[in-house]
């Protein structure tokens, strides 16, 4: 009796033999295989010329596969595997609205009585109480009141010419001129073809308040037009909040800001104008050359319209399916996703070690991302961190490593950045990952599933009331959290729903200044943000999230990348994810041999994905599977 292996080998011989090598016409199964390979490696069905090539005697299918394991379509195919697992996009429910970045605009009357837009940013420090932290022209001067939520009221009146000249200036901004960094910008952005990706301001940004005159300059509050990188601390002299008697000076309806304890303690310090602290503390910080440190908006609303961009790019950002006017936050969010897309494409196209997906300090940026990392990312820092003397961000992506020559208009120019900085770690420190998975636990959880192929499944226990804050020991919780909490601790130094890094120099894991003197009550508001009163012990407060493993907290995202990629199951999990994606089905116990083969192909080739995929495409599982005839299936046949 022939062995099963022998029989199977004989049965498959006709298929696995390359098409037409013996001069015979390809069989239907060979055509089917070629079409499948085209779908997987070219991202489309084969073209007539390609089928004709395939039919020629001597066609080298193995060579064809190798050739197509290097193309962009292959990279896209592989990227889809991981994008499907990680789902790295966030919807419009999430708005990136950082007030130090957003230039909103108010329609007022200039001294001649003509309607004019004036751009400003909320929270901008100014040297007079009538407009400090608010719109630079007071209601008494404009007749228009800007509420804290952006609501406008009142009737516009012509502004005094001296006030107009003193408080506002004209600028040729980056969203209108591609040469905005020059002394006299002239290259105004024109209409763009919507079928391609380009910087495309919404119509409202391209016309004046009269609705038809093309905008060639924008009028902006004088403070916002400043360009220094650093500015001195500004002290208004207001220590306590003014009495809540509305209106405040100049008719303003928002309370003027007071001088913080930090600014009073550091009156001679210089602060960075690319940090949120700079906008909060320095009247000398503006939006930079051509306003490049700010995003424009067409109104005073929370997230005003700014640019046209696609909603749907399943074929890539350079092949959009639509185009629509979107908010300034949408613009930034769109490019966060594209950073992950291009990072993964680069990884697979260049067959880099797949482990670097989690650990590499490199990334890919284009013009908008360069602008974000250079000018916007620091704007979320440092809030209450000033209590801990944290006023300038210790960034996940060091702005010094961003190419200085990339301008926001270069949306299709992508560059590989070899080193983002010491805290960077693959996708784990990209804004899209940190925002998609806003909490420490969510971040750990998705990695556990996508890269370790494991799921948290609670044991069958009855939950009992408990006040135990430690979920690693609380009955009913411990089954999952004993594993999850130590993994989540790796993200303790990356703020939740943010990319602000919390360095140990400012935020020690154990902080005696933040010890809780009463159970579950933080000693003060600032400590409560960063330190968990439930885990105060030994005269120290515990950094939030670190209780699962203080050591992991200090190792940071790079630590969990190291643990996951060193796990013996890592290669097998990669093999399973890729195999399931290509075969379109879930692996079962019957696939263990295939999983092992693919895992070995990966790990024995320096964790290069191409070796794994090559092994998969040449495996019988790929060539013979999924071949149940549709007609047979329609008649009730089972696989």
């Amino acid at each position, binding site marked *: *009796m022939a062995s*099963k292996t022998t*029989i*199977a080998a004989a*049965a498959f011989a006709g298929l696995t033999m390359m098409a037409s090598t013996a001069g015979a016409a*390809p*069989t*239907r199964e060979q*055509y*089917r295989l*070629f*079409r*499948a390979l*085209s*779908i997987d490696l070219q*991202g*489309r*069905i*084969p073209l*007539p010329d390609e*089928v004709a090539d395939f039919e020629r005697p001597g066609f080298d299918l193995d060579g064809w596969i190798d050739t197509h394991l290097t193309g962009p379509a292959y990279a*896209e195919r592989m990227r*889809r595997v991981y*994008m*499907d697992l990680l*789902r*790295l*996009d*966030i*919807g419009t429910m999430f708005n990136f609205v950082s007030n130090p970045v957003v230039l909103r605009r108010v329609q007022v009357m200039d001294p001649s009585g003509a309607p004019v837009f004036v751009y400003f940013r909320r929270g901008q420090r100014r040297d007079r109480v009538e407009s400090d932290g608010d719109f630079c022209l007071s209601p008494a001067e404009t007749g228009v009141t800007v509420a804290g939520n952006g609501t406008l009221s009142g009737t516009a009146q012509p502004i005094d010419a001296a006030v107009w000249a003193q408080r506002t200036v004209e600028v040729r901004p980056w969203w209108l001129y591609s040469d905005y960094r020059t002394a006299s910008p002239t290259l105004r952005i024109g209409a763009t073809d*919507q*079928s*391609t990706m380009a910087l495309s301001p919404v119509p409202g940004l391209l016309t004046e308040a009269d609705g038809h005159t093309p905008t060639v300059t924008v009028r902006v509050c004088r403070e916002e037009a400043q360009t220094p990188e650093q500015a001195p601390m500004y002290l208004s002299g207001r220590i306590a909040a003014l009495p809540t008697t509305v209106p405040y000076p100049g008719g303003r309806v928002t309370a003027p800001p007071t001088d913080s304890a930090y600014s009073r303690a550091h009156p001679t310090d210089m602060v960075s104008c690319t940090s949120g602290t700079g906008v909060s503390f320095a009247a000398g910080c503006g939006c930079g050359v051509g306003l490049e440190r700010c995003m424009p908006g067409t109104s005073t609303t929370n997230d005003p319209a700014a640019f046209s961009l696609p*909603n*749907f790019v*399943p*074929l890539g950002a350079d*092949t*959009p*399916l*639509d*185009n629509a006017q979107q908010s300034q936050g949408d613009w930034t969010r769109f490019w966060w996703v594209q950073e992950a897309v291009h990072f993964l494409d680069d990884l697979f196209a260049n067959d880099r070690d797949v482990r670097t997906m989690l650990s590499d300090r490199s990334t890919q940026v284009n013009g908008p991302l360069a602008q974000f990392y250079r000018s916007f990312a620091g704007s979320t820092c440092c809030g209450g961190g000033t209590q801990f003397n944290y006023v300038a961000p210790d960034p996940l992506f060091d702005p010094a490593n961003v190419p200085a020559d990339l301008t926001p208009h270069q949306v299709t120019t992508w560059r590989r950045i070899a080193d983002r900085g010491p805290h960077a770690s693959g996708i784990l420190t990209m804004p899209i990952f940190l925002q998609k998975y806003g909490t420490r636990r969510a971040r750990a959880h998705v990695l556990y599933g996508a890269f370790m192929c494991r799921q948290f499944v609670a044991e069958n226990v009855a939950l009992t009331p408990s006040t135990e804050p430690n979920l690693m020991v609380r009955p009913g919780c411990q089954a999952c959290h004993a594993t999850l909490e130590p993994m989540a601790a790796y993200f303790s130094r990356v703020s939740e729903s943010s990319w602000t890094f919390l360095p140990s120099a400012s935020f020690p894991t154990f902080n005696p200044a933040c010890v809780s003197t009463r159970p579950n009550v933080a000693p003060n508001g600032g400590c409560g943000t960063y330190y968990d009163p439930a885990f105060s012990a030994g005269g120290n407060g515990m950094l939030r999230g670190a209780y699962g493993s203080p050591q992991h907290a200090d190792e940071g995202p790079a630590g969990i990348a190291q643990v996951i990629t060193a796990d013996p199951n890592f290669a097998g999990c990669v093999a399973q994810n890729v195999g399931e994606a290509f*075969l*379109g*089905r879930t692996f*079962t116990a*019957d*696939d263990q041999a295939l999983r092992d083969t693919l895992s070995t192909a990966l790990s024995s080739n320096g964790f290069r994905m191409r070796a794994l995929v090559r092994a998969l495409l040449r495996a*019988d*599982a790929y060539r*013979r*599977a*999924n*071949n*149940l005839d*549709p*007609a047979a*299936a329609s008649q009730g046949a*089972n*696989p």
Partner: protein
Amino acid sequence: MTNTARTLVVSALVALGCNGTPAARTPAPDAQAPVSRPATDITPTPVTAIPGHESLAQDTAPKEAPRLMPAETLIRSYLTLFGGLSPIAFQTRMRTTTTGEALFDTWADYLSALGIPDYTADIPRAAQTNTLQLAAYERIAVALCERAVQNDLRGAAASAQVLFTFDLPAGRSLTDAEFATRFDVLHRRALGYPAALAPDTRVPRFLALYRSAETAHADAGVGSQRRFTGPEAGWAGVCEGLLRHPEFHLY
């Protein structure tokens, strides 16, 4: 269930002497008590040990139903079928008309139905077909094929033809052989292999489809508002049949 697993089940049933007659059930004295059986009750037995199975050939290759083409691949394939236009240009071309019929909506209207994952809402990629998806296939096939007929079969130069890369004889109907030759062009384009390798019923069934559409439109008579001639309607129908064929979407 894979063949391997099925084989084990069959083997076990045979080994147990299953003859199709259910044994009388004996009520358990305690329904909550775990049921235990002597280990000797079920003895793993190779199928080859079963009388009559000693030389039975087994195909142990795992077999699964065809998988669904990724929606991105499907869209890109549609685009290449219509000459490689950009998605927005394709959409414009499908919608623009001088005669009033808009054959297409927008890509955004079809994406969900086609199975594109929505990462923003954590909606996964569609792994199986559904009725909405089939309706979307139908709609896109109609749009693409009818536009292609209008583009290709009304005197376009060969270099301008995108899908129907053949001509039609003027003033007469195609013979069956002439149909088969042209059908093979479309069959190869859509399904990637010669029609001659398809199941035997493939060509006759599509020929019947072609003839019925051709006849129906030819019978429309003078003054008909129909926009297609008989042959045009026939080829549009054939094209639509191929682009919504399971072999087109599955692989």
